[in-house]
């Protein structure tokens, strides 16, 4: 997919702005949409739903073995305990990294992503390079993210082809014994829950 729009000049941007405004006007005048609902939808995904939700889930799993067990058995129900439910998270599965296994999530066919715990996907996740290559050359793609796994670590790529959504549970970083849940959540990056990163070491999280 093209990225020209990122560098587009002002006239091109205003042309698409006009086109979207015209679309919204027609749909509102026909009574199909409530423009106020659009504002609520945008506000939800801009300010309310994002990767801090997922970070709380991961931190809870690190400190609470019973929660971790429920999360691995039925992630949809376990995540709902923290209040995260709904669209694009109706059928959640948690996949856990271990010293011998690293998990990475992709949607090669479109952009499926666990919205209630991670929010909307970043541009690279939806891009042709990531979608085409991570299933075939995961080590090469992870290296571009600065992530080099030990040679003995096996990589499992999860291609989200149905309505099941995957959340990676990264390994708990060393040197965090005795950390409280909130401090641990601050170490959990969005990329570590997609699998293109790992959780931060305590000294990195400043």
């Amino acid at each position, binding site marked *: 997919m093209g990225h020209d729009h990122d560098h587009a000049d002002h006239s091109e941007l205003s042309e698409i*702005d006009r086109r979207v405004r015209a679309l919204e006007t027609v749909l509102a005048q026909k009574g199909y949409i409530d423009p106020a609902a659009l504002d609520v939808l945008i506000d939800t995904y801009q300010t309310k739903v994002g990767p801090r939700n997922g970070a709380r889930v991961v931190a809870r799993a690190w400190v609470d073995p019973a929660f971790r067990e429920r999360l691995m058995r039925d992630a949809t129900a376990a995540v709902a305990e923290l209040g995260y*439910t709904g669209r694009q998270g109706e059928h959640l599965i948690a996949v856990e990294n271990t010293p011998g296994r690293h998990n990475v999530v992709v949607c090669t066919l479109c952009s499926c992503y666990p919205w209630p715990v991670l929010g909307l996907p970043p541009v690279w996740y939806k891009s*042709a*390079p990531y979608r085409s290559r991570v299933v075939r050359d995961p*080590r090469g793609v992870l290296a571009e993210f600065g992530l080099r796994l030990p040679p003995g670590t096996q990589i499992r790529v999860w291609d989200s082809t149905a309505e099941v959504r995957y959340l990676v549970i990264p390994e708990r970083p060393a040197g965090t014994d005795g950390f409280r849940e909130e401090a641990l959540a601050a170490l959990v990056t969005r990329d570590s829950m997609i699998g293109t990163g790992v959780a931060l070491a305590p000294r990195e999280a400043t």
Partner: protein
Amino acid sequence: MTYVSHADLGGRGGFGPVVRQADDPVFHGAWEQRVLALTLAMGATGCWNIDMSRSARETLPDYLDLSYYEIWLKGLETLLAANGLAMPEELAAGRVLHPPKPVSRVLAADRVAAQLAKGSSTARAPAGPARFRLGQRVVTRPAPVDHHTRLPAYLRGKTGVIERIHGAHVFADSHAQGLGEDPQWLYTVSFDAVELWGGEARAGDGVSFDAWQPYLEAV
């Protein structure tokens, strides 16, 4: 084949390295936010389903030349015209030229939070018992099909193992074609990377994907 998806990218070459932006924005401009919200709000009218939306996007001839939200915008415009809800001349003029068609639901602002929190489960009662069991070896359908499908090309005709059984779910292939929900058993099937990519892959690495039962045959 008359149906062509331009979105089936797994394993294809030539797209270059993954490009990340400094602050990794979710949106680039206000219009992208409006396109997302318009797509969700029109989806809520029930005039089409999510599989029809995906089908409308992946069949855009210029899919690979468009940015993500340009794809969503064109996909939405395509569905609006195909359903007679808003025609291209109206979108060009920015005003209503044809009378509206009745829609079954309009998403109200005060219902958004509840609707999003509720989501829309695709789990359904199965019509019969599951054909496959955990650990069973299966082979995926080798041939392409002439309609929307969620079996990626790189996973066609490959042998893998049933890793999870999810119950029966709305079958995307039927749903996208307007043939109803047609619930089918859904499985996670796992493949060794060498089965998919041969010698360039590392044994032990692998790919898992979610496959409806019609995609699979016993080995």
